[in-house]
């Protein structure tokens, strides 16, 4: 029996690593292609991000003379935090290689944000400064929303580990409402964390209207590639996690359907991103707290539901 679990564990680790390696850029390509199609364009090839990445890795780098190690290390720290987080959350429906819990997950994301922030501030550029300021201001609400929503699930499951929180439970109206509220809270937080519309516009070229793009403005070559890759992986990871919560409503019974359903939910999330980015406009900076407060409210309501029903 232990041999079987050993093999399945190894398989799951390999699957996770495979997805971490390939899926993020594929997702980016899909989203870009989808946006193109929705805007009646041909759109770039789905494999274009892979080519972009390869090109960036072949390039040399330009680094500002004002910077220190913080600037050079920020892409590495950012990627390794997201990588660790991706190994700790069961975002493709299989048991994660490392048994993580939601607090560690949220705080790992925060570590990535901290390193990106001091990387951007390192250049002495106003773009980096303002981007960091906005990033941390947005994260006030996203972190609170994520912690509240996950905490509601954790109390429901009597454990803060992802394995227990996202394991299939008997469907009921109570669970459906809870999952719905948690999905709303997480999805709104994720939109901000992924730097997507309507919080942030990943395609704009006006630096002061952007958050994430201004944050990585000074990076070039391989460092920029690492930054882009971290963002893509984070997008995939968050979509996958939101999908796992959504699957609580109708949990698949065995490993293979769980895996396929999870991929389907991630794909659905990508479609939602495509539609949102093609139909919505970016919110004014001052209106963003209003949007994110819906996420916090959904988190509080999820907590209330868990507190009352037990």
């Amino acid at each position: 029996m232990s041999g079987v679990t050993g093999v399945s564990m190894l398989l799951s680790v390999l699957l996770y690593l495979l997805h971490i390696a390939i899926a993020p850029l594929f997702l980016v390509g899909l989203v870009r292609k989808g946006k193109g199609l929705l805007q009646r364009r041909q759109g770039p090839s789905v494999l274009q991000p892979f080519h972009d990445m390869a090109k960036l890795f072949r390039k040399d780098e330009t680094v500002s003379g004002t910077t220190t190690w913080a600037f050079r290390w920020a892409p590495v720290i950012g990627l390794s935090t997201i990588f660790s987080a991706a190994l700790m959350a069961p975002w493709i429906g299989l048991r994660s290689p490392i048994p993580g819990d939601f607090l560690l997950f949220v705080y790992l994301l925060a570590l990535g944000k901290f390193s990106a922030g001091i990387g951007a501030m390192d250049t002495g550029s106003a773009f980096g400064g303002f981007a960091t300021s906005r990033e941390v201001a947005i994260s006030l609400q996203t972190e609170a929303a994520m912690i509240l929503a996950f905490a509601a699930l954790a109390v429901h499951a009597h454990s803060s580990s992802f394995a227990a929180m996202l394991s299939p439970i008997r469907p009921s109206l109570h669970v459906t409402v809870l999952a719905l509220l948690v999905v709303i809270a997480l999805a709104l937080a994720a939109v901000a964390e992924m730097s997507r519309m309507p919080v942030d516009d990943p395609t704009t070229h006006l630096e002061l209207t952007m958050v994430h793009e201004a944050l990585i403005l000074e990076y070039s070559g391989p460092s920029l590639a690492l930054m882009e890759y971290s963002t893509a992986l984070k997008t995939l990871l968050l979509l996958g996690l939101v999908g796992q919560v959504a699957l609580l409503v109708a949990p698949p019974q065995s490993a293979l359907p769980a895996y396929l359903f999870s991929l389907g939910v991630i794909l659905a999330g990508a479609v939602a991103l495509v539609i949102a980015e093609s139909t919505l406009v970016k919110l004014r900076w001052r209106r963003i707290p209003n949007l994110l407060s819906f996420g916090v409210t959904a988190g509080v309501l999820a907590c209330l539901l868990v507190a009352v029903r037990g």
Partner: protein
Amino acid sequence: MTHPLLPVICAILVALCWLAAPVTTLIAGRGANSPFWSIAVGAGAVALLCAGIAGLAGTTGLWNLPYPLWLGAARFTFRLDALAAYFLVVIAVVTVPIAFYLPAYMEHLCRKVDMRLFWISLSTLLLSMSGVVLAANVLTFLVAWELMSLSSFLLVAADHQPHANRQAALIYLGATRLGTAFLAGGFLWAHALSGSWTFQDWHFRGAAALGPGILLIIGLGVKAGMWPFDLWLPIAHPAAPSPVSALMSGVMVKVAIYMMVRLFLLQPAFNHPALGYILLGLGAISAFWGVLFALLQHDFKRLLAYHTVENVGLILIGVGGSIAAANLGLPVVATLALGAALFHVLNHALFKSLLFLGAGAVDFSSHTRDLDQLGGLGQRMPWTFALFTLGAAAICGLPPLNGFASEWMLYQGSLHLSGSRVIPLLRFSGLLMAGWIALVGALALACFTKAVGVVFQGRPRSRGAEHAKEVPGGMLVAQGLLAAGCILLGLGAPYVLRLLQSFAIIPGAGPHVLSSAWTLPIGTLAVVLALTFAAGGLWLSEASKRDRVRSYITWECGFGDLTPRMQITATSFVQPIARMFGMLFRYAVHFRIEGTNRRLFPETIVVEPRTEALLETQVYAPVVWWVDRAGSWIARMQAGSIHLYLLTMFVTLLILLLIAGRHP
């Protein structure tokens, strides 16, 4: 179990080392700054560490000072147990690095500060803090407490040339008087009820515990910097020399928390659920209030001092939650909350001292603490920068450092409260508390991104910052020791929890509650992070070796070189957050544009954001004003007229007779 006499020997060594400094300084001159005194301070701290470890290993005891060392007919009594030993360790682990830091740092203060007074006050502060922790009765406690307050007052006033420092010292003195008044009131009340001055004889339950308990909470809360008594802390802590700020913020506030744990929680002298709810509520407000005001600060050390208010708030959430849960019959929740609070006490002592020593290093080499005058120090002081950044990550609770470990325990406490069989309101509060701690954590992250970014990164905003140099080795060693502590306690959290559960157990909880609650794969995480960091480091060095990295300027949009003034300032960094919470401190931006043709050719443009803390202007300012008025009115009686004095005495006598006469 160690030899029962070991603590006594350690105590004698500690006393010898820490008394050697003041005695010998009397011989030395005013500007004396020889490493001898630092060695004495450090050696005393090592001896104290031994005593603490002996206490944690299970050696306990009760000691009375022999006859001539009495105070009148009352005895000085000291008691060592595991809880006291734990706090002795907290004092010692901060003092040892400070001993490394002192010789170089005090060099630049030698001419401004009377060094004899400095060494005497510092030794007294260290001795009296240990005395408070070990005190077994009210007399011993109050004597040590007062010595602690007065010596730290002298240290705040050490550099009394600037007006601001004198004012800070005065405000601090007022705060300590207020605190001691409440403490004395609480102790007198407890004595009147029980007839004993020994803490161990007090077992108040129900309504009897409430009155003295609240007075003691206020008295201790003033020292701990609990909201709404936190006003003095951000004024007084930064005014002292940096190693002293580190001691005050890192250790002295913890002494007040120690007394709270001792009096209200472990074998509580005062047990009433309301005390728990009061501490919990005030702690929650302190955590938020502290970090919010830290965001708005321009003074580097003041920013750090406000973070002390925040972290004291987090610790009080743990202590208060533990009292409340113990009274609700939830020993597991109570133990988790207490474990989180005690763990955070140690963690905060380490990273807050590290940050204050870092701020001191910045002050030392750039001669300013104003965030708007700093910048670009990362290139000039690389070690201080790296160590400060590590401390900042630790205080923000980022994994895998120690701040994360204790905040994680705090989250576990609130989640366990919500998962237990209590009324829905309490379950909901537990969940909301988790969200609240998350908000506080995110605010801390914002604040320290600002601090690191504005102080150490970008380009220098003043000549002082431009010509800054790395500080001497001793100061770096001190910061390095504390940073190593932050990493070790983060990775070794399970061992700390195992240590804590040997004494911090609420009756009814199992013996392994804390270590079995720790389910984090922090070791695996550390391995994954270390491997990826190593790979990244290799890759970076390879890239620079193969000459694939070109150094150039920061992108300036093609408009010519950037100036330091074009960088983001501390004020504009926090503007989005300040606007979000504007109703709490009345955030307003004032524009002033002047000139003969001010529309087209303005001569001066001044934009100034103003923040006004409503608690200070609407509550404290009127109170101070009335106290001042009443004081000057009462002062009229002291007019030097013998008739007036005689009249006062007569009236007093009459009133006393009237009161006494009613009771036969």
